[in-house]
């Protein structure tokens, strides 16, 4: 009898996250306001930075740890960096947010780190049980994070909605995994891959697993929660969910379908490609009429999920590389957009309504240009990283005889212009006088508010002197610059993506 050998070096990125979560939680208990307000987020940044550093150190090792239940390979590490970049941006965006004060500083950032830990476990999982562990570790902190804006009714609604829908997704996933185990007699990915042939039990299991993961990745028709939850959650958390959760969901889709279920690719390939096309259409059409920027980006993220699903469907190393590349650039361009929304929400009384951007081009070039670049990149315009992301996805699709998915991506992009350009038009081609101020909804009853007592004067449409928000503008500008730089010189990112694709040696 001996315990499993533990490769501490390979485990180190996860240890950094666990340790960070504990330290942040404890330091958050200190009484000093300065410590809670500034040291806690700084420690969170340090933990995320350490994780990235350890990830770079472990790059190329491609080891399998804890009795082959976690694969710390380049795919895991590439996605870990995506999560950490998303996490760093979220920390910076919530630095001065009221959400974390209401929820407690330590708890807020500790939950964030725990959620990232869950994502890493999820994409590294080599076993259905570990997969589920990671899935829940990722989800439960997020349910809480969504509701951290306790004084806004929508935030509470968002957290509750996410909890209910997410639990349904988890249950479906779990049921599907049980069927997979029943059909193949193994919970290991390799064991499942060795299963002889498919029967009804197995295919039902696959279908339920697809449905469960599709909830997380907001793939249509399992996307309905996305706009509501995105709109209600604090914007920094929304940004985190849009980039990191999406990356995690696609990481596990890549691993599960292109490793464990690769021998049944002929069965799930057509089904997933139908889902991809439906998702592209639903997301893009749904976004057209939205006036809330967060809802717009929610639908846009649904559409982008459809594009990336194409990279999963083709099930080649090229497809994986294309998906990872797209996830990375998708993270950058979305974070730039969310940073601008965070900044405008704090400056104006218009919330995340599109009219909050009116006149931004003339007044605030440091917010206007990142938003413009983010929208152009999401639309796939050249000279931005989004162009090469789409190019690579189309190439992967055409390369493996899924040319129609390439056409679907193209048609989806054409539709998407209608709403991305509307945002750009709001930034540059409208004047602030056209905006109509919204009435604040006041504190919800459930959080101790009262409609009679809380009669507030509506604040002016534009705050007299906007607070300086250096860190928010910093996130927006850095992400926008990176989007342009990788649009002109994508080679380094391509290499990372190629290594990640090569990590799955079961593929051609």
């Amino acid at each position, binding site marked *: 009898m001996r315990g499993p050998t533990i490769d501490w070096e390979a485990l180190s990125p996860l240890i950094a996250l666990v340790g960070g979560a504990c330290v942040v939680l404890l330091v958050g208990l200190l009484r000093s306001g300065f410590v809670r307000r500034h040291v806690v987020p700084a420690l969170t940044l340090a933990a995320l930075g350490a994780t990235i550093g350890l990830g770079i150190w472990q790059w190329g090792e491609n080891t399998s740890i804890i009795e082959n239940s976690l694969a710390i390979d380049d795919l895991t590490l590439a996605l870990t960096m995506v999560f950490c970049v998303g996490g760093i941006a979220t920390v910076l965006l919530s630095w001065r947010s009221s959400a974390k004060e209401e929820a407690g500083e330590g708890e807020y950032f500790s939950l964030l780190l725990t959620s990232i830990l869950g994502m890493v476990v999820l994409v590294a999982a080599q076993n259905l049980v570990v997969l589920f562990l990671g899935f829940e570790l990722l989800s439960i902190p997020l349910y809480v994070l969504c509701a951290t804006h306790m004084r806004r009714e929508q935030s509470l609604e968002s957290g509750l909605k996410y909890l209910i829908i997410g639990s349904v997704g988890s249950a479906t996933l779990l049921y599907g995994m049980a069927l997979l185990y029943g059909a193949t007699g193994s919970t290991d990915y390799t064991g499942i891959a060795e299963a002889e042939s498919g029967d009804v039990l197995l295919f039902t299991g696959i279908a339920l697993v697809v449905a469960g993961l599709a909830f997380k990745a907001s793939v249509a028709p399992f996307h309905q929660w996305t706009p509501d939850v995105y709109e209600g959650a604090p914007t920094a958390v929304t940004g985190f969910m849009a980039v990191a959760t999406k990356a995690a969901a696609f990481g596990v889709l890549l691993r599960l379908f292109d490793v464990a279920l690769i021998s049944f690719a002929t069965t799930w390939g057509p089904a997933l490609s139908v889902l991809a096309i439906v998702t592209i259409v639903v997301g893009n059409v749904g976004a057209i009429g939205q006036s809330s920027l967060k809802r717009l980006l929610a639908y846009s993220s649904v559409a982008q999920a459809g594009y990336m699903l194409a990279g999963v469907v083709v099930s080649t190393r090229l497809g994986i590389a294309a998906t990872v590349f797209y996830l990375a650039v998708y993270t950058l361009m979305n974070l730039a957009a969310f940073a601008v929304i965070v900044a405008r929400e704090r400056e104006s009384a218009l919330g995340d309504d599109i009219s909050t951007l009116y006149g931004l*081009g*003339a007044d605030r070039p440091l917010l206007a240009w990142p938003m413009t670049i983010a929208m*152009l990149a999401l639309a*796939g*315009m*050249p*000279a931005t990283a989004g*162009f*090469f992301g*789409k*190019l*690579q996805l*189309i*190439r992967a699709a*055409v*390369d493996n005889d899924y*040319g129609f998915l*390439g*056409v679907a*991506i*193209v*048609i989806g*992009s*054409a539709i998407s*212009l*209608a709403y991305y*350009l*509307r945002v*750009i*038009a709001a930034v*540059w*081609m*409208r004047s602030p006088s056209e905006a109509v101020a919204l009435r604040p909804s006041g504190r919800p009853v459930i959080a101790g508010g009262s409609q009679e007592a809380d009669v507030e004067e509506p604040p002016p449409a534009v705050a007299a002197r906007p607070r300086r928000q250096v860190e928010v503008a910093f996130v927006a500008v850095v992400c926008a610059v990176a989007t342009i730089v990788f649009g002109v010189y*994508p*080679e380094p990112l*391509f*290499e990372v993506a*190629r290594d990640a694709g090569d990590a799955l040696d079961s593929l051609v």
Partner: protein
Amino acid sequence: MTVHLSILIFWPLLLAVLGALAPRAVAPLFALVGALVPLGYAVIMLVDHDPDARGLQYVTDDAWIEELGIRYSLGVDGLNLWLVGLTTLLFAASALWLVLRPPVRPQLFAVHFGIAETAVLGSFLAQDLALFVLFFDLMLVPFYFLVGQWGGPERVAAALKMVIYTLVGSLLMLAAAVATAVLAGAGPDGSISFSLDELRANLLGEGTQKLLFAAFALAFLIKMPAFPLHGWMPDTYRNMPLPALAVFSGVVSKVAAYGFLRIVLPLFPAAAEDWQLILLILALCSILYGSIQAFTQTNIRLILGYSSVAQLGFITLGIFAFDDAAKGAQGALLQAVNHGLVVAPLFLIIALLAARAGGSEDIRDMGGIAFRAPVLATLFLIVTLATLAMPGSANFVGEFLILLGVFESRLAVAIIASTGVILASVYALRMYIRSMHNRQGPAVTSFEMSLRDAVVIVPLVAAIIAFALFPQRALDAGEPAVQAASQAVTGAGR
């Protein structure tokens, strides 16, 4: 291996960025310097070009994105030499116009103007399919902002319409370009390559070619615009600011025509032959529909817009003539330069006419402007006569060659097309007479053009005259390259 073409392409962009950081008053000057240096380069290249040399000159060829087989590959030959010259000339003229009549928010205008020139030059000079697509799509972005921020009353809607229309084609072209490169597998060991040279050496099967041809042709026909795909044109032309419209109408549509010669005919020769008749019919429809519309419109911008549809129809006709000596294609290339040369000064003249007709751009409000403005009237007349392809103008040579080419290959098409020449004189002369002569309009106050306007328009008119005297130079330079492109098809057909 030289850096000259890279400087030529990216100089306007560099100056645009510097201009954005410069004080408001001098921003247009940065745009002007950004446009003059490429013009100087282009003039030197025109003088220096060796017409007897086959193949590309000033070649730049570096690996850019090895993962995708994309090369940073640029080069000049007879096909793009004169178009590059046209581009730099028109952008320089427009930039000068901007210096003399600064728009509001000049720094931003200069930024978009510079990006536009970089994108247009890049798509003319790219020798790699992906690089071409990249620059081709990039062209749209600055013009979107130019329409949307500095345009007429319906600017936001017009800008959106333009982008969606043209980007549908462009995105299909992107997919088709990727498919071409993946399926041809022209790189070493069958790997992916976008290099035009390698793609030319590894042609695809006829069935695939036909599909991909359709995607490329759609993108180019929308961009031109050609007959059933011109829906975005009227709104865009009505709303785009005139200095931007001068370069937009002058060169952006030519990129589409050039794309047929550079990309479509060499890469999809078998498909080009199959689709020839359909393209010829579309071209005919463009000529007739454009001419008739130009004859009925009263907004002078739309008269020019629809006349461009007709002229681009002639150019398409020439490209797809496929006669043995490739006269049609040569005429098309010459006509592409000619049309750019005449249409840009016409759009600038519109601004002068509107200033004299109480701000209206409707020819019903004009009339009698020539009365006290003989110099303006003379310049306008020269450009109008060139537009209707008066014998003696380079446009006459171009249209003559196009019709000659089509007569040799498709007699019936040529006979119908020649009516377009007559219609052109009808709408061009109508525009001139209604605005400059006739009874004086109610709000018209006629006065002579100022020196400030003359410095922009006189050089452009001088260029038209010079080109009318020496069209042979452009024909000689273009002949080998155009013949190679056109005969890729006719040779494949045999």
